[in-house]
């Protein structure tokens, strides 16, 4: 659909609009060299023409939680750290982030950073921005990112004062501040690359509304024009001195409602780089674009969830049925045909591009296609308690989900002999409504795109007890103390090996209980025209715009 494709944002955001990932992109090669230069000319000059979508919210870092605004914000703001293309965090504004116990952090900023209006970037710029984002009075969409900081609960009430602040933040001097968390969180520094943690200049607090239209940042680019529903233009920030130095003269994002139009535009020279391929071209794009096609793993996990108390899927019979469903789906076949190789079967509850991923967790055999085994499990369950069908698999029609849903339900019909059908919800919000009210029955599609490259980002928020019962994204209301404990142990572990071992032990429990049935990991698909070089897509599915060079 046409219009539904605008849903790239709703679609990718995997489940929906928000799980985006606006991680900053860092680059090793960029080095600290001078800005690519706004001056005309040389070999790497020129403005890059890229696709985008109209930002849905004012361009304020703590209020931007979807890709349309995210891709702009992450290029006009620099946070404490940014990620390189592989997702490794590197310091950007931070000079150092130190902690002894993973709970108390001392953050020191590098000298010499300024906003594009000339104001210096100080510790106060960060603390004020975070306090603003966390305070419920400001209704910021990404406020939940500050949840681990001490005092977060105190700024959430109905009648919280607009100037209430987080007790866990304290400014030491111009370039130093401390952060106290409510509990040890070893991956906190990794999270700081998310754009919600960006600093804000005084100009923002003077006029928040005007700022949202004309943001002033400290990133590699600055926003020079934003024509609503048409385009946004970024120019190089001449004062930028971080690791993401632009190698071009700027980026122009053209907003497409239908990505197919964008693809046609790419073919005819109206676009240099595209970060998504329409379903109708999945078969042909690698041929049409040749080496300029991009098809690489991304941090996107797709699954379908069934509530733990669904009458057909609870108890012992329910567990057998969950396993039967999982085994009756031929993931490889769907990835090869429907997705034309732009997805790969899931092997755990995260994705291959994040730290802590594994393809050999005990219990993951339940993901292997086995029609006879599935049928046997289903019949065993029938013996205990008859199934009251049909089995429905709900999805939002404003993303590209109808096709694979139909393929999955056809496989369930063919392999289990049960009546299985897709159930379409017109919009993501209509689907979320029923999921949120827990009025939905059967399976419903669920997906997650990592905010920061760690397996923990795929586990706690989706299956932890703290996120159940409407407090987070644990839509199945899966509550397992053993699982929670393993995650807590993993997060407070001081070495990665222990941390990831705990995470994988937690995943074993998920494979046993299957609150969600993993399906596949989406690749990022995209491509570029012959007009540009050095097109690299990051772990977060975004092109590293600053690295792209225009061919003269």
């Amino acid at each position, binding site marked *: *659909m*046409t*219009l539904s494709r*605008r*849903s790239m944002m*709703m679609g990718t*955001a995997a489940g*929906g*609009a*928000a*799980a*985006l990932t606006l991680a900053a992109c860092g680059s090793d090669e960029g080095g600290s060299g001078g800005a690519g230069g706004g001056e005309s000319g040389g070999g790497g000059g020129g403005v890059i023409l890229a696709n985008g979508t*109209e*930002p*849905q*919210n*004012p361009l304020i870092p703590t209020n931007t*939680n979807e890709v349309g605004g995210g891709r702009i914000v992450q290029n006009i703001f620099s946070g404490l750290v940014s990620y390189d293309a592989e997702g490794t965090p590197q310091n950007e504004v931070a000079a150092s982030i130190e902690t002894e116990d993973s709970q108390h952090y001392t953050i020191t900023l590098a000298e010499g950073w300024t906003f594009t209006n000339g104001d210096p970037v100080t510790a106060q710029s960060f603390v004020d921005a975070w306090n603003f984002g966390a305070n*419920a*009075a400001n*209704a*910021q*969409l990404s*406020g*939940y990112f500050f949840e681990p900081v001490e005092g977060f609960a105190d700024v959430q*009430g*109905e009648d*919280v004062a607009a100037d209430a602040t987080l007790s866990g933040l304290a400014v030491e001097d111009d370039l130093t501040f401390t952060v106290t968390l409510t509990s040890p969180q070893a991956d906190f520094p990794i999270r700081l690359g998310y754009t919600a943690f960006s600093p804000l200049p005084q100009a923002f607090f003077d006029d928040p*509304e005007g700022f*949202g*239209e004309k943001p002033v940042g400290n990133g590699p680019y600055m926003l020079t024009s934003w*024509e*609503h*529903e048409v385009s946004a233009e970024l120019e190089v920030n001449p004062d930028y001195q971080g690791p993401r130095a632009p190698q071009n003269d700027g980026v122009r994002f*053209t*907003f497409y*409602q*239908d990505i197919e*139009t*964008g693809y*046609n*535009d790419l*073919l*005819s020279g*109206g676009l240099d780089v595209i970060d998504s391929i329409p379903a*109708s071209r999945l078969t042909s794009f690698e041929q049409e674009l040749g080496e300029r096609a991009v098809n690489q793993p991304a941090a996107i996990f797709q699954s379908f969830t069934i509530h733990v108390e669904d009458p057909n899927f609870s108890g012992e019979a329910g567990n057998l049925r969950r396993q039967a469903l999982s085994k009756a789906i031929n993931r490889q076949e769907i990835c090869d045909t429907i997705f034309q190789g732009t997805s790969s079967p899931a092997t755990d509850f995260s994705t291959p591009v994040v730290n802590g991923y594994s393809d050999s967790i005990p219990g993951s055999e339940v993901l292997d296609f086995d029609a006879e085994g599935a049928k046997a499990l289903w019949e065993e369950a029938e013996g205990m308690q008859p199934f009251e069908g049909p089995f429905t698999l709900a999805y939002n029609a404003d993303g590209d989900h109808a096709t694979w849903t139909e393929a999955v339900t056809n496989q369930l019909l063919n392999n289990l002999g049960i009546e299985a059908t897709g159930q379409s*919800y*017109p*919009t*993501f*919000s*209509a*689907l*979320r*409504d029923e999921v*949120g009210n827990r009025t939905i029955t059967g399976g419903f599609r*669920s997906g*997650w795109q990592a905010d920061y490259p760690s397996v923990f980002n795929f586990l706690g928020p989706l299956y932890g007890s703290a996120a159940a019962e409407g407090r*987070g*994204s644990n839509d199945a209301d899966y509550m397992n103390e053993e699982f929670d404990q393993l995650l807590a142990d993993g997060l407070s572990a001081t070495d990665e090996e222990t941390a990831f071992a705990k995470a994988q032990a937690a995943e074993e429990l998920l494979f046993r209980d299957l609150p969600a049935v993993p399906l596949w990991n989406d690749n990022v698909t995209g491509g570029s025209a012959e007009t540009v070089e050095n097109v690299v897509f990051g772990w977060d599915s975004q092109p590293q715009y600053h690295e792209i060079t225009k061919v003269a």
Partner: protein
Amino acid sequence: MAWYVLRRVLQMIPVFFGATFLVYFLVFSMPGDPIAALGGNKPLSPAVQDRLRAEYNLDEPFIVQYLLYLQGLVQGDFGTTFAGRPVIDDIRSAFPVTARLALVAITFEAILGIIGGVIAGLRKGTWIDSTLLVTSIMVIAVPTFVIGFVAQFVFGVQLGWVTINVGANVTWQNLLLPGMVLGAVSFAYVLRLTRTQITETMTADHVRTATAKGLSRPRVITVHILRNSLIPVVTFLGVDLGQLMGGAIVTEGIFNIPGLGFHLFDAIQRGESTKMVSMVTLLVIIFIISNLLIDLLYALLDPRIRYDARK
């Protein structure tokens, strides 16, 4: 005539309220909680949701919301989008775009449709009539989204004749192809309708008389046949203008034209009730005005229809 125009202008008021109420009611009934959806997969805290609901009056009962909306409207305030922008700004940028697109479409369908219809009507039963009939059916049978993408691919990508991303540069020239795609179905209608009217009028007594009287064929066609045949066609075109403006959702999406349809679809997907209602309100106003103009045009084409008894 002045009295008639005044009466019609006054009648705009109930239509205006009726339509805005109907739209508001429909939008209000739509499933899905737009505020909860703003957070995507990561639920917003109840405190944040409450603040946002209060900001957009979504915590009020339906009728209060509607009255608050009307209150703003009367003061010239079309409300704000979730992005914090006045809706009027979006309307200001979208309206001229869609108006031009609709104008291209209606010009295309009127000229080609009437010419085709006249030819088919005058040559009823010949091969040219059958060809035109089949052509018009194909146009109706193939959905706009297919015609649009094929046209874009052939003329934009393969032949390179047209700009694909019309939104970047909305010129008359760039609107030609989208306008033709948008007007394609209506073109088929106009053709069919004109043909029907022509064949009917051709057998009318005054036309036979005129022919018998020895008037030249061109004169019979233009003065006696066309003038009398075109009334339903003109009605249709007038009716169609409003539909084209609001119904350009698919075409505007394909050609990336940031007009009303584009904005409306966006608003529907996000549950932006204020934006939807305001844009549809605008369509209502356009429709009522074009309606009035059509009725006046009627009087010009058919002197038997007169609107003011008083001299």
